[in-house]
């Protein structure tokens, strides 16, 4: 590991309670800048809980989180210094279907620095950035629709545009490609690659698609309430690690899938 660089994100001994049970127990890891890290694990493993507790959406029982060198508290909002440096794409995006918000307006919200400002501040730059972001996820034709009028995959794309409408240091994606069609999925991984390689973003993504993880990610974190293993895909996705994470019968399933 590179000791001289501060990690983009470092999580230390994170323990989170959801309802009666502990959803996460003493999870520690850190992200190096410019890497694409996948979190994998079975359903209910606490993957979403992990990213939500990093961002303060779910409160932590124990442990500390540092983002871009700033310690985060769940009591307080994200510090101003990191606020615009991180984007989050949630797994479930629940909105009131009656809210009259258009796609353009949603994406523009991603661009805004949410301080005190005039509503028409920097309208031009904003409009341009929104157009570009929509084009990038092939959703320019959706701009004037209400967000409640989108199909599942369209919603995912719009959220992606919301995340990348402004340049960030950390992109946190919770099952972003689920619901995308085959072609958009490929575009999506291509996009992540560009963001990482060309713009130096760090990416933390929750994924169930082990093939893609193996092919695209730099590091993998295997989670099942505890941290089961982490490392480069070759080692982390080795059968014994996967068996530890997903349970004993796992290898058979993998075999099944790949019998093509």
């Amino acid at each position, binding site marked *: 590991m590179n000791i001289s660089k501060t990690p983009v994100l470092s999580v230390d001994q994170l323990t989170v309670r959801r309802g009666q049970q502990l959803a996460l127990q003493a999870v520690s890891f850190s992200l190096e800048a410019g890497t694409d890290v996948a979190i994998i694990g079975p359903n209910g493993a606490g993957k979403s809980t992990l990213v*939500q507790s990093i*961002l*303060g*959406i779910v409160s932590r029982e124990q442990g500390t989180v540092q983002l871009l060198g700033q310690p985060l508290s769940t009591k*307080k*909002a*994200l*510090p*101003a210094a*990191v*606020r615009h440096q*991180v*984007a*989050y794409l*949630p797994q479930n*995006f*629940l*909105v*009131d279907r*009656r*809210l*009259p*918000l*258009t796609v*353009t*307006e*949603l994406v523009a*919200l991603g661009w*805004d620095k*949410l301080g*005190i*400002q*005039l*509503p028409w501040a920097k309208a031009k730059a904003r409009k341009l950035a929104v157009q570009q972001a929509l084009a990038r996820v092939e959703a320019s034709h959706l701009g*004037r629709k*209400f967000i409640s009028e989108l199909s599942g995959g369209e919603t995912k794309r719009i959220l992606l545009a919301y995340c990348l409408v402004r340049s960030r240091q950390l992109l*946190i994606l919770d099952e972003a490609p689920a619901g995308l069609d085959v072609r958009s999925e490929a575009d999506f991984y291509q996009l992540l690659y560009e963001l990482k390689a060309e713009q130096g973003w760090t990416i933390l993504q929750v994924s169930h698609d082990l093939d893609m993880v193996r092919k695209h990610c730099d590091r993998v974190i295997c989670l099942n309430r505890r941290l089961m293993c982490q490392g480069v895909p070759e080692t982390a996705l080795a059968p014994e690690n996967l068996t530890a994470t997903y349970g004993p019968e796992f290898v058979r399933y993998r075999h099944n899938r790949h019998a093509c």
Partner: protein
Amino acid sequence: MQDLSTALNLFTYPFMQRALIGGVLTGLTGGILGSFTVVRQLSFFSDALGHSALLGISLGVVFGLNPSLVVLPFALLFAVGVTYLIEKTDIWTDALLNIVYSSSLAISIIVLSLEGTYQTGINNLLFGDILGVLPGDLLISGLLLLLSSLFVGLTLRTQVLLTLNEDLAIARGIHVFAHRIAFMMLLSLVVATAISSLGVLLVGAFVVIPACAARLFSRNFSSYLILSAVLGAASAAAGIFFSALFNLPTGPSIVIAQLSLFLLATGKKQWLDS
């Protein structure tokens, strides 16, 4: 119906001019705040506050305080209390408002039935008297409009994101609870101040109806917000004019104007949908 010149003649009286200006100012404020209030399911906030204010006043009287000094601090406390309860109990917002509403009524009746307090009518706050608007009230309405426009204008993005999805808002560093409280305090300030001259009924209608009508007309959020304010002002003016023309009580006339607008919007939507 009076003839038009008689009706127009009424507008030469200062009280009518003040009613018109006051109505338009409150219409604008109500429309601006209302567009968020309605989406956040706080439609009955004014009614709940209005009935609780009565409790505040009676308690103030019990402790020997001047009612008009009690109302504003009470309204702010109310805003904090309700926001806190919504946050902590995780109960449907409208149900919570209903609980607050029934309970304050019940408590005030009980407090009043104890001896030594002076009787203030439950319904005193229901109907204000837009014709009794004082020049000072206009100043206050103007200030509140300014305050609301500034608040909503300058934090517009934050308000929208917060209304859209709480998780996204937190992930963007928005202090959700603080913003909720701020909004509720502003709303309660506006409602509490307007109640004494306009009455609960009219304040509630100003907040809810133009926003709902605007919702049916608009194809994006900005137009929703602006239209809501415009419809609020326009329906106030129209209502006052009708009230003069047909010699009807002013407050209810404004509500009827708003209702007509809403039904028009409904009709238009029906017609477009088919």
